[in-house]
């Protein structure tokens, strides 16, 4: 499975756009990219998933360049409640087991 590298932590302020980039240099052809959010003592919550180019849903956007060796999660106008750990995972969708890295701890300040 492709190993991912993310910044350990990021700080932001309420109302700002936050971009978290993940590197996955060894991503395989069949791998998808999935992002999860986790609050303390809660289960990871699915945010967004994509294979290439750009994916957008009601909470985030995911940008994937043509070489797919990295991806960027974009959170528009964050609020205090977005303070959490964000995980980038790559894997084949069928039978996929996720190997979680350390994630990025996002701290949103007022």
């Amino acid at each position, binding site marked *: 499975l492709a190993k991912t590298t993310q910044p350990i932590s990021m700080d932001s302020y309420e109302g700002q756009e936050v971009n978290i980039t993940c590197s996955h240099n060894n991503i395989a052809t069949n791998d998808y990219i999935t992002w999860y959010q986790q609050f303390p003592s809660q289960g*990871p919550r699915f945010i967004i998933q994509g294979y290439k180019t750009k994916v957008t849903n009601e909470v985030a956007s995911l940008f994937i360049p043509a070489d797919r060796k990295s991806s960027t999660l974009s959170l528009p106008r964050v609020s205090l409640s977005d303070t959490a750990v964000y995980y980038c995972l790559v894997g084949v969708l069928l*039978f996929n*087991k*996720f190997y*979680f890295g350390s994630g990025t701890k996002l701290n949103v300040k007022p």
Partner: protein
Amino acid sequence: EPEVTQTPSHQVTQMGQEVILRCVPISNHLYFYWYRQILGQKVEFLVSFYNNEISEKSEIFDDQFSVERPDGSNFTLKIRSTKLEDSAMYFCASKGGDTQYFGPGTRLTVL
């Protein structure tokens, strides 16, 4: 929106005791998983289950662990003889299409 549910939310047990953690996956999902997260550490894959059998398991999932789908709705993780180091959050997940959805977790405390 359908959710994965887990019971109990918190389980306290004595070392050497057996525990069963229960999960109700999202209905019509076919793939089921257990993960654990020791306090302050990352989420670790334990086992995946499909078509009533284990698909994959990690090195953590030794003979002390077992999984079962006893009926059409529940998915259980049994730890036969708990150790202090089994203390962790245990997350169940299920997948029907392309996405794994996680439950809220069971906090297991082994004394």
